[in-house]
C-alpha cells in the first residue's frame, strides 16, 4: 500500500460510527493526490516516435527531471471522477448563493460551443476565414445593446471584476480627456461587492464609502453630501446586494452627473431586471454584466467568466480594443489604436475576449428570446419573494417590503441561541443544500443572502423552505451542539482555515526520503 493508503486506513474518526478499513464510506471514495499515484515512465498519452532532426534548442535544454507524476488513463479518469463527486453543483441541487446567480446551465450551450467552426479557430487567422465568428460576436453585441438600450459594448473583459476595471479605466480616460486630474474619489456604497472598492483602488482612486439608509438603499442625502469636484464616479450595484432596486436611481444619476462625475453600475444582478428595465434610461454611463451569471455560462468552480461592459455615449469612445465592425466588405476587427480607435483606452486582455462564453451566452439569449428573458427576471424575482414570504416569520428579513432576485436576512433570529450564521449554514449542508451567501453584504449582522434564481421549481423551493424552517426551529430550541458539529455527513467536516493560513501548504512536496533518493 502507498503511504497515502496507509494514512487513510490509520485514520479512525470519532465521528464515524462505522469506521471502514479503506476510509471510503460506501460510494464516497477516498482519493489520494495525483502525485501520490506516481510511477515514473507511466503515461496516459501515447505519442509517436520523435522525428530525428538536429536540435535547435541551443544551450537551452531542460536539465533534470520535472517531477510530474506518471499515471495511466484509467487512473486519471477515476481520479477526477472520484473527486468530482465531492463537489456540490447547481446540477445536483439548489445553489442559493446570493449575488452569484447560480442558474441552470443548458447542455445545448456546451454542445454548440464545441462546434469545430467555433471552438477550433485561431484568434489570428485571416479575417476572411473567421467571418462567422465575427458575426457571432457582432450578434451578441447587438443583443446586449438591445437588452440594455446602451449604444456601445466592450466584449473583451474576462469577468465581472475585469469589466469593472474596464469601466473605471474608461472613466479615467474620459476624465483625462477632460483634463480633470483632480477627480480622485470614487464613491462606493458599503454594501458593495469587494471587487468594487478593489477596482477603484487598483486604478488609483480613493474609495469613499456611502452608507445605506434604513431601507437598504443608498442614502441619497449622504451621497449628495459626498459629491464634489474631486469625485470621479459613483459605483453602484443595481439591484443592489441587499436584493433591492435602488428606487432613487435616476435622482442619483442626476446628482452624480450634476457633480461632473460618472455613474458606474455594477450589473452583476442584471438577472433581476433583464427584459424589464432599460439600463440606458436609468442614467447609467457604464455597466458591466456577467455572462456567467445572467446568461448562464457555467461557473466551472470559479471561472472562466465574461464581463461585457455597456457604455453610454459619454464613454463609448474610450472602449478598449478589439471590437467588431460590420461594413460592406463583411466583418472586421479593430485591433489597434489610432484611426477609428483614436481614443480607445488600449487593450486589456489578450485576443478578442471570451469567445467560448460568447457562444454559450448567445445560445442562451436566442433560446429564451425577448419573451423568455423577460420571464427570467420575473421568475427570479418571484422565487426570491416566495422565499421571503415563506421564511419571514422564522428568519429575520433585514429590510421591509418585497425584494428583487435575492432576499437578505440577518442573524437576529439566531440571537441568544448560540448558533451562528456559519453554524446554520453548515447544518444546511448536511441536509443536502449548498448554503446561501453569508456575512455579505457587510451592512447587516450575520447576513444570509439567498438567491434562488428562476431555475428552481416551486416544489424545489417548498422542500428548501421546509428544511430552513425546520433548522430555524431547531436552532431556537437550543440544540447548539447539533449546529456546531455540522456538517457530519460530508466527505470532509469543518476544515481548519486558521492552520491553513498560518502555515500555508500551497503545493505538494515529495516526502523527504524520496527527495533524498533523487
Amino acid at each position: 500500500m502507498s503511504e497515502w493508503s496507509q494514512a487513510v486506513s490509520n485514520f479512525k474518526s470519532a465521528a464515524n460510527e462505522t469506521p471502514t478499513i479503506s476510509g471510503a464510506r460506501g460510494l464516497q471514495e477516498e482519493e489520494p493526490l495525483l502525485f501520490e499515484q506516481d510511477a515514473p515512465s507511466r503515461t496516459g498519452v501515447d505519442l509517436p516516435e520523435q522525428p530525428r532532426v538536429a536540435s535547435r534548442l541551443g544551450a537551452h535544454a531542460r536539465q533534470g527531471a520535472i517531477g510530474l507524476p506518471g499515471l495511466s488513463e484509467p487512473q486519471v479518469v477515476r481520479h477526477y471522477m472520484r473527486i468530482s463527486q465531492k463537489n456540490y453543483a447547481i446540477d445536483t441541487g439548489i445553489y442559493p448563493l446570493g449575488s452569484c446567480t447560480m442558474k441552470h446551465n443548458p447542455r445545448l450551450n456546451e454542445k454548440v460551443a464545441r462546434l469545430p467552426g467555433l471552438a477550433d479557430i485561431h484568434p489570428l487567422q485571416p479575417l476572411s476565414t473567421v467571418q462567422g465568428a465575427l458575426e457571432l460576436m457582432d450578434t451578441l453585441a447587438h443583443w446586449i445593446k438591445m437588452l440594455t438600450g446602451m449604444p456601445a459594448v466592450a466584449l473583451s473583459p474576462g469577468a465581472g471584476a475585469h469589466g469593472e476595471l474596464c469601466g473605471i479605466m474608461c472613466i479615467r480616460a474620459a476624465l483625462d480627456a477632460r483634463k480633470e486630474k483632480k477627480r480622485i474619489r470614487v464613491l462606493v456604497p458599503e454594501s458593495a461587492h469587494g471587487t468594487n472598492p478593489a477596482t477603484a483602488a487598483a486604478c488609483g482612486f480613493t474609495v469613499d464609502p456611502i452608507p445605506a439608509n434604513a431601507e437598504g438603499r443608498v442614502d441619497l442625502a449622504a451621497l449628495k453630501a459626498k459629491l464634489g469636484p474631486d469625485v470621479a464616479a459613483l459605483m453602484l450595484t443595481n439591484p443592489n446586494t441587499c436584493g433591492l432596486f435602488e428606487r432613487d436611481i435616476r435622482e442619483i444619476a442626476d446628482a452624480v452627473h450634476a457633480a461632473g462625475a460618472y455613474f458606474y453600475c455594477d450589473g452583476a444582478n442584471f438577472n433581476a431586471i433583464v427584459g424589464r428595465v432599460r439600463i440606458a434610461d436609468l442614467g447609467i454611463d457604464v455597466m458591466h454584466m456577467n455572462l456567467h451569471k445572467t446568461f448562464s455560462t457555467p461557473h466551472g468552480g470559479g471561472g472562466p467568466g465574461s464581463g461585457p461592459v455597456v457604455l453610454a455615449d459619454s464613454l463609448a469612445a474610450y472602449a478598449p480594443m478589439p471590437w467588431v465592425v460590420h461594413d460592406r466588405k463583411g466583418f472586421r476587427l479593430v485591433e489597434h489604436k489610432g484611426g477609428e480607435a483614436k481614443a480607445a483606452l488600449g487593450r486589456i486582455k489578450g485576443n478578442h475576449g471570451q469567445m467560448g462564453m460568447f457562444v454559450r451566452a448567445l445560445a442562451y439569449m436566442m433560446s429564451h428570446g425577448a419573451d423568455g428573458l423577460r420571464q427570467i427576471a420575473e421568475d427570479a424575482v418571484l422565487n426570491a419573494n416566495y422565499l421571503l414570504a415563506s421564511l419571514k416569520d422564522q428568519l429575520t428579513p433585514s429590510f421591509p417590503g418585497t425584494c428583487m432576485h435575492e432576499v437578505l436576512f440577518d442573524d437576529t433570529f439566531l440571537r441568544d441561541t448560540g448558533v451562528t450564521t456559519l453554524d446554520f449554514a453548515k447544518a444546511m449542508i448536511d441536509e443536502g443544500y449548498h448554503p446561501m451567501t453569508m456575512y455579505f453584504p457587510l451592512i447587516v449582522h450575520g447576513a444570509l443572502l439567498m438567491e434562488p434564481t428562476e431555475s428552481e421549481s416551486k416544489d424545489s423551493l417548498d422542500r428548501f423552505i421546509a428544511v430552513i424552517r425546520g433548522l430555524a426551529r431547531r436552532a431556537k430550541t437550543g440544540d447548539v451542539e447539533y449546529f456546531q458539529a455540522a456538517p457530519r455527513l460530508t466527505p470532509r467536516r469543518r476544515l481548519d482555515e486558521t492552520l491553513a493560513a498560518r502555515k500555508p501548504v500551497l503545493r505538494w512536496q515529495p516526502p523527504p526520503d524520496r527527495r533524498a533518493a533523487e
Partner: protein
Amino acid sequence: MRYLPHTAADRQAMLATIGVPTIDALFADVPAAARIEGLLDLPRAQGELEVERALGAMAAKNLAAGSCPSFLGAGVYRHHVPAAVDHLIQRGEFLTSYTPYQPEVSQGTLQVLFEFQTQVALITGMEVANASMYDGATSCAEAVMMANRLTRRKRAVVSGSLHPHYRDVTQTYGRFVGFETRLADPVPMAEENLAGLVDDQTSCVVVQNPGFFGELRDHTALAEACHKAGALLIVVVTEPVSLGAVKPPGAMGADIVAGEGQALGMGLVFGGPHLGLLATRERFVRQMPGRLCGETVDVDGRRGYVLTLSAREQHIRREKATSNICTNSNLCALAFSIHLALLGEAGFTRLAAINHGKAAALADRLAAIPGVGVVNDSFFNEFTLRLPKPAAPVVDRLARKRILAGVPVSRLYPRRKELRDLLLVTASETTTEQDMAALAAALEEAVR
C-alpha cells in the same frame, strides 16, 4: 420555455403566498421611465434545433484549424487534447459549481486546485503558483503590479520579446493603475541589453521565453542584474509545452512567472477563455493576486483543502486587496491539470520533444525555399521566417487554398515596416508530413 420550471398555476400560487396581485407589483421600485413595457425588438424564444442551426450556420462560415494544414501560434497553440479531458471537465459537479467557498462540499475543486498549483510550480521551476488568472496577458500585467508592490517601485522594463498583446495590456494597466512601462523595440533575435535599462526606480524586467519570435534565451545573468538592482525578473511563458524541453524560468532565477496555459487542455476557442498562470517564490506569496488553495485538516484530523490567504483578496480586503480579481479561469485550470496528469513526466517531455522535432523539420524544409529564410538562432516549436515580400498577403493567398500558413507579424505590429516580411510559423505533434509538404509547396509558389 424549457428552462423555466414554473407553470402559470405555480406563478399564481406563489404570488398569492407573497400577497401581491401581479408580478408587476414586485417591480414597483423601477422608475416608470425605465420600464420596458412589452417585448424588446429581439427574436422570440427558439427551440434547441433552431438555435443549433443558427449557430451552426455561423460556425460553418469559419475555417476550422483542424480541417486544414495550420501553422498558427503567436501565443495560442493547437495541440491534440485527449478525449478524457473534455469529458471530465463537462461533469456537472465540476462544470456547474461555484468558487469553492464551502470547502466541505467543494473538496473536488479544491483538490484540483492544489494539484494544479503544484503542477504549475513544477513545470515553471518555481516554488508556488496561484489558482489562475484570466489569461497570460492579464497575468503579466498583474505580475508587474505585484513586483511594484514587492519593490515599492513603479517602473517596468519590458523586452521586445514579449508578445505584443501582453505589452499592450501591461501598458494599458500601467497607464491607469499608475506605473511606467519602458518598452524595448521588437527586434527578432536581438541580444537585448535590458540590464542596462534597470535603475533604482525599476521594479521589474519582463522577458518572454521562448520569445515572441520563437527565440530561446537564458536570462540567468539578467536575473542577477535585476536582483543586484533591487528589481525582480518576470519571465513570461506563452507556450507551456516548451517547459517539457526548455530550461524553466525557475532555473534562471525568475522571481515571477506569468504564463498562458491554453496550450494544455484547451483548444484555440478563437482566443478565449484561456488560462493565466502565475507562479513565484514562497516568500512573495502574500503579495500574489488571485486565489490560493492550501492544505489543512478537518475537525476529525483528516487532510483536506481550503482557499487560503484570502486576506490578500478583494472579498476580504476590499480596497486594500492585492488585486480586484474574483472569478478566474478555474475550469481551464482543471483542463490543463487533467491534460498534464495524463501526460505525466514521460508524456510531457516527449510531447515537447516531438513539437521541437516537427518544428525543426519544418524549418529545414521551408528554409530550402528560394528567397525564404529562417530568422531564428534557436527555437522550440515556433520560428520566424523572412519572406521576400510582405507576409500578410501571402498568408491571405494561402488561406484561400485552405492552408493557414502562420501569423504575419504585421497582424500584431501593423505600423512597423521592418517586420512586414516576417511570418511566425508553428509546428506541433498534430503537424503531419502532408501538412508540411502542402505548406512548402504553396509557400514556394506564393513567394515566387
